[in-house]
C-alpha cells in the first residue's frame, strides 16, 4: 500500500505504520516497567510491615496490631484506584468535548480512557479483595461504600465498552457513547451517596497521608507508586489512543487511499498497455 500510492500526501501519513510505538513511548514504557520493578522491591521487601504497638495500659500487655505484611498491597492498591478515577474523569471530560465540539480526537481519548480505566478498575477490585481477605476477613464486603461504588462503576463502564463495539458509524458512535459515558459519570456521586445511606459504613480507612504517623519511607513508596502508575497509565493511553486513531484512519481515509492506489495501478496498466501497443506497432512498421 505504501509504495504504490499515487498521491501520498492525500493518503494517511500513517500508512506505513506497523505498530503504535515510537521512541518516546519506548522510553516511557521502559521507565514505567523499571519503576514498577523498583516499586515492587520497595513495597514488598524494603519497607517495614505494619506493626504498630499500642500501649493498652498498666495491667494489659502492650498490644501488637496493625496490618502486618498485608499493608504492602496498599502501595499497589491505592495508586491503581487513583488512576482508575483519573481515567474515568478523563472519559467524562472527553465525552463533554465530543458533545460540545464534535471532536474525533476527544472521542478517541474518551474511548482509550474508558478501556484503560476498566482495566485499572478491575485491578483495584482484585487487589482490594486480596488485601481484604486477611484484614477484613472477607474477600467481599457488601455495603462498603467505596467497594460498592467501584463495583457499580466497573459494571457501568464494561457496559460502555460493550456499547461502543455495537456501532460502526464513527460519528454516531462518538455522540451516543458520549451520552452513555456522561450518564455513567453523573451516576458516580449518586451511587456513592445511596450506598452511603444504605449501610452508612465503610471499612476503608481515612487518608493517613496528612497525619504525621506515616513514616518517611512509607510516604516515599506511596508517592513513588502513584508516579509509577501514572506513567503506566500514560503509556497505555498513548498506545490505545494511537490504535484508535489508526482505526479511525482506516475507516475514513482507508477507502479513499485504496481507491487512489487502485487508480494508480489501473492508469499504470493502461499506460503500459499503450506503450506496449505503440512499440509493437513501431516494430510492426519496421
Amino acid at each position: 500500500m505504501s509504495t504504490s500510492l499515487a498521491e501520498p500526501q492525500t493518503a494517511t501519513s500513517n500508512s506505513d505504520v506497523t505498530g503504535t510505538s515510537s521512541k518516546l513511548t519506548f522510553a516511557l514504557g521502559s521507565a514505567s516497567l523499571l519503576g514498577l520493578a523498583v516499586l515492587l522491591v520497595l513495597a514488598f521487601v524494603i519497607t517495614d510491615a505494619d506493626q504498630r504497638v499500642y500501649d493498652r495500659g498498666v495491667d494489659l500487655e502492650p498490644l501488637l496490631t496493625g496490618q502486618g505484611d498485608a499493608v504492602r498491597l496498599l502501595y499497589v492498591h491505592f495508586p491503581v484506584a487513583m488512576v482508575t478515577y483519573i481515567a474515568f474523569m478523563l472519559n467524562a471530560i472527553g465525552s463533554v468535548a465530543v458533545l460540545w465540539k464534535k471532536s474525533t480526537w476527544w472521542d478517541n481519548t474518551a474511548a482509550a480512557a474508558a478501556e484503560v480505566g476498566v482495566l485499572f478498575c478491575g485491578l483495584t477490585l482484585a487487589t482490594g479483595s486480596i488485601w481484604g481477605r486477611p484484614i477484613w476477613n472477607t474477600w467481599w464486603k457488601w455495603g462498603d461504600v467505596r467497594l460498592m461504588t467501584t463495583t457499580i462503576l466497573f459494571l457501568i463502564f464494561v457496559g460502555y465498552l460493550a456499547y461502543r463495539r455495537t456501532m460502526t458509524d464513527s460519528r454516531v458512535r462518538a455522540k451516543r457513547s458520549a451520552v452513555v459515558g456522561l450518564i455513567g459519570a453523573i451516576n458516580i456521586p449518586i451511587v456513592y451517596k445511596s450506598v452511603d445511606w444504605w449501610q452508612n459504613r465503610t471499612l476503608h480507612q481515612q487518608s493517613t497521608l496528612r497525619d504525621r504517623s506515616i513514616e518517611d519511607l512509607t510516604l516515599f513508596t506511596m508517592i513513588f507508586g502513584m508516579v509509577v502508575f501514572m506513567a503506566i497509565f500514560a503509556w497505555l493511553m498513548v498506545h490505545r489512543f494511537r490504535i484508535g486513531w489508526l482505526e479511525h484512519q482506516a475507516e475514513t481515509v482507508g477507502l479513499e487511499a485504496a481507491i487512489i492506489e487502485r487508480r494508480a495501478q489501473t492508469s499504470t496498466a493502461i499506460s503500459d498497455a499503450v506503450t506496449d501497443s505503440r512499440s509493437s506497432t513501431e516494430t510492426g512498421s519496421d
Partner: protein
Amino acid sequence: MREIWALARKDLRIEARSKVVATQIVPFAMVILVLFGLALDADSRTLRDLAPGLFWVATLFASVLAIQRSVAVETISSSFEALRLSGAPAWKLFAGKALAVAIQLLAIEAVLGLGIVVLYRSSFQDPVLIVTAAVAATIAIASAGSLYGVLAVGMGVRDTILPMLLLPIMMPVLVAATRAFGDGLGTAALNGWTWTGLLGLLAVIYATVGALAYAVVIEDT
C-alpha cells in the same frame, strides 16, 4: 401536555390491541417470582423477608422487556422519523414515550404486588408509602429506560446491549426502592419515606437527563 399525552395514548392503544405486555411481560414477571420461590427453597418467612428485593429485581427485569417493546413499536415501521416530523420538541417525545412505559410498568407492578401477597405472604402495612415509592421508582426506571432504549436502537445487537447499559445504572434505584418497600411491607425497621425521597430525587434526575439528551440521541435513529 396534549402532545405528550397523545403520544403516550398512542403507545397504550398499540398495547391494548397487541397485548404484548399483558400476555408476555406480565406472565414473565410472575415466572420470576415463582423462580425465586423455587430457587430459594424457602419457608414462607424467608420469602416474606426477601419480598421487597425480589419484587424490585423482578420489576427491573420486566422493565427491560417493556422498554424494548416501547422502542420496537417505533422501529418496526421506522416511525421515529414520523415522530420527529410531528414538530413536537424532543423533550415532549421523550416524556410521551416514558409516560407510556411508566403506566405499563405500574400495571406490571400491581400484578407483582398481588403476586408477593399470595406467593410470599407479604402484607401491605403502609399502602400510601408503597404506592408513592413505586410511582417514584417507576418514573426513574421509565425515564432512564426510555433514553437507553433509543440509544440502543439501530444496531443489530440492540436486544443484548440494553440490559448491560440499563441495569448497572439502576442499582441506586434498586437499593432505595427495596428499602422503601422494606418499611412499607413491615420487613425492615427503617424510615421508608427518606428512601422514597431519594427515589423522587432519582426520578427528577433521570427525567431531566433524559429530556435533555433525547434531542441528541434521536437524530440518528
